[in-house]
């Protein structure tokens, strides 16, 4: 249901109220509905992620409570709610409390701009793309707030890492979206979806999609870019000192982030709700989002973490040129080729593979060549005999 429909429905239901009050009320209802749904989805996603990760690691995963362990998120939520809410004595109390709230609020806020289906006006707004990019950059600030207010050395180290990393990855992410904006001639997510009705942009802009995907994984600081929390190094990074509901808020928004990223990726590069028309658009949207989420989980389960300097180098040396090249290519194609999709696909895929080859084999390390070991002269037991 869209906001306008809700507003009209409220007007029919309560005709004696003034329009302005109806507007505010339907806004509140809408927001409450979205938040509740999202929190529900987020908690189910925690179960899903744990189950799928367990399968990748040849384990079973939570299966005790309810069918297939589906009630596990509820048990977790109850446990976290009943925990003592600890605020360290030396912490900056106001900032310490504010950080998880802002973190969760921003994460929930971006969801209101995802166009779920054909008649959904949630994704409206002429500059939704800019709004989403802007809101997601608040993450860096909240993570820094949390880390700094905790007055914990691990937390500060983690938050400094977070600021450095998140800001670096903002840039290639935004630049990689330029291609999409240029092709669809729109900044609204609905417009972008509509312009992909013939062909999804991932086929036309493989380089842009790849860049966006990697930058987005880094933005939500998941493996292999989970520098911010990096369990084995900094214990928990900025969430080291958090417990109880504050911790739950951080965890929830962290689990909501991959869903949002998948949905955003679906809108930008996979054509959103477009598909065969006999199945409703919301179904197409969900299934695409689901597949992207699974791929993110697959990456997470397989790859180790990069080091901080390697991550920063990757952002500026690899992703930035890729994003700029993509923008340049798309711009030139729009001017000189026009709407010949086949030619664009050929050119762009060629350019993408050439670029990856160049980066991998010229700038990156060569293939693993194991040197032949030479025994040292010292204490060589074969020599003694």
């Amino acid at each position, binding site marked *: 249901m869209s906001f306008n429909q809700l507003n009209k429905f409220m007007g029919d239901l309560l005709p004696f109220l003034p329009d302005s009050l109806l507007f505010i009320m339907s806004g509140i209802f809408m927001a409450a509905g979205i938040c509740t749904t999202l929190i529900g989805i987020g908690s189910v996603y925690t179960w899903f992620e744990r189950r799928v990760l367990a*399968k*990748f690691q*040849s384990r079973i995963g939570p*299966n005790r409570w*309810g*069918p297939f362990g589906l009630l596990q998120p509820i048990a977790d939520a109850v446990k976290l709610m009943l925990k003592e809410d600890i605020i360290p004595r030396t912490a900056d109390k106001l900032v310490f409390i504010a950080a998880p709230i802002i973190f969760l609020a921003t994460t929930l806020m971006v969801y209101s701009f995802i166009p779920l289906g054909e008649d959904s006006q949630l994704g409206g707004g002429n500059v939704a793309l800019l709004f989403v990019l802007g809101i997601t950059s608040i993450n860096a600030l909240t993570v820094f707030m949390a880390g700094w207010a905790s007055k914990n050395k691990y937390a500060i180290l983690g938050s400094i890492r977070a600021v450095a990393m998140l800001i670096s990855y903002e840039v290639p992410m935004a630049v990689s979206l330029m291609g999409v904006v240029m092709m669809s001639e729109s900044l609204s997510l609905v417009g972008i979806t509509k312009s992909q009705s013939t062909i999804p942009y991932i086929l036309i802009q493989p380089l842009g999609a790849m860049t966006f995907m990697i930058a987005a994984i880094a933005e939500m600081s998941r493996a292999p870019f989970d520098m911010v929390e990096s369990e084995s190094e900094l214990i928990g990074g900025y969430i080291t000192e958090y417990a109880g509901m504050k911790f739950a808020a951080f965890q929830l928004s962290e689990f909501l982030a991959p869903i949002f990223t998948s949905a955003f990726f679906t809108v930008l590069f996979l054509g959103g709700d477009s598909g065969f028309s006999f199945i409703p658009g919301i179904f197409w949207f969900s299934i695409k989002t689901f597949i992207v989420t699974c791929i993110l989980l*697959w990456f997470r389960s*397989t790859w180790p973490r990069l080091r901080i300097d390697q991550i920063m180098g990757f952002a500026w040396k690899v992703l930035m040129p890729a994003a700029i090249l993509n923008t340049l290519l798309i711009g030139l194609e729009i001017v000189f080729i026009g709407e010949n999709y086949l030619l664009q696909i050929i050119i762009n895929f060629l350019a993408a593979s050439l670029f990856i080859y160049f980066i991998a084999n010229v700038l990156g390390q060569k293939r693993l060549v194991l040197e032949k070991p030479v025994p040292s002269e010292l204490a060589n037991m074969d020599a003694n005999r």
Partner: protein
Amino acid sequence: MYGLGLFKGLSITLKNMILVKRTNTVQYPDKKASVFDLARQSNKNFISYMITNPLNSFKSFMGLISIKQQVDQHPRFRGEEFSWYEERCTGCASCAKYCPLGIIKIVTDQTGKHYQEGQSYDIETFDIDIGRCMFCGLCVEACPYDALHMGSGFEEGQYMRDNLVIDVDRLKKAEKKPSHWFRPQLSDKGDYSPFDAEIEWDSVGRHQKPSNKELKNKWIRSESNDS
């Protein structure tokens, strides 16, 4: 090409996800039963089981049915439910002397009885403090009359520390399911497994009274071993 290793790793994790049989998690103490497990339990084909028991099939699909699951363990497992045979014990306190931690306490009565394997005392106290026990099994190794055996169970968890001390009454009443640890004669029987049935005192031992020379060899190291 640089970068292929990453995708090779992805294929490995995918392979491990698909090959579900590689999972060797044991769900203990109970297991969420699937329809296949239930059908196997009632010796039926799973299709016929689903037709005859639709409610149970649905429940198991929802993950509401759990069946008992035992951990696979070898008869030689050193469990904490000690098996002690009053009839065989002479009260020599070898186990107490040999325990590295000194957690076995034996007090005997002077009035003796005659049993098959030699003179024995009445046991008044036989306390094993399994709260400190490390299940090395040296007491079992030391017992010359095969009276003390490691058990096969391991579910002796208690709420109070005092309850962890196994006293003589509990030892007498306990289920006699001796482990094969350091008791090769039990393994040689072939058909006996500690998980099936209890075993009586007259069939756990070597059944021959050890000769004085054997006892001497076992307990005293001296130069005159040969004589």
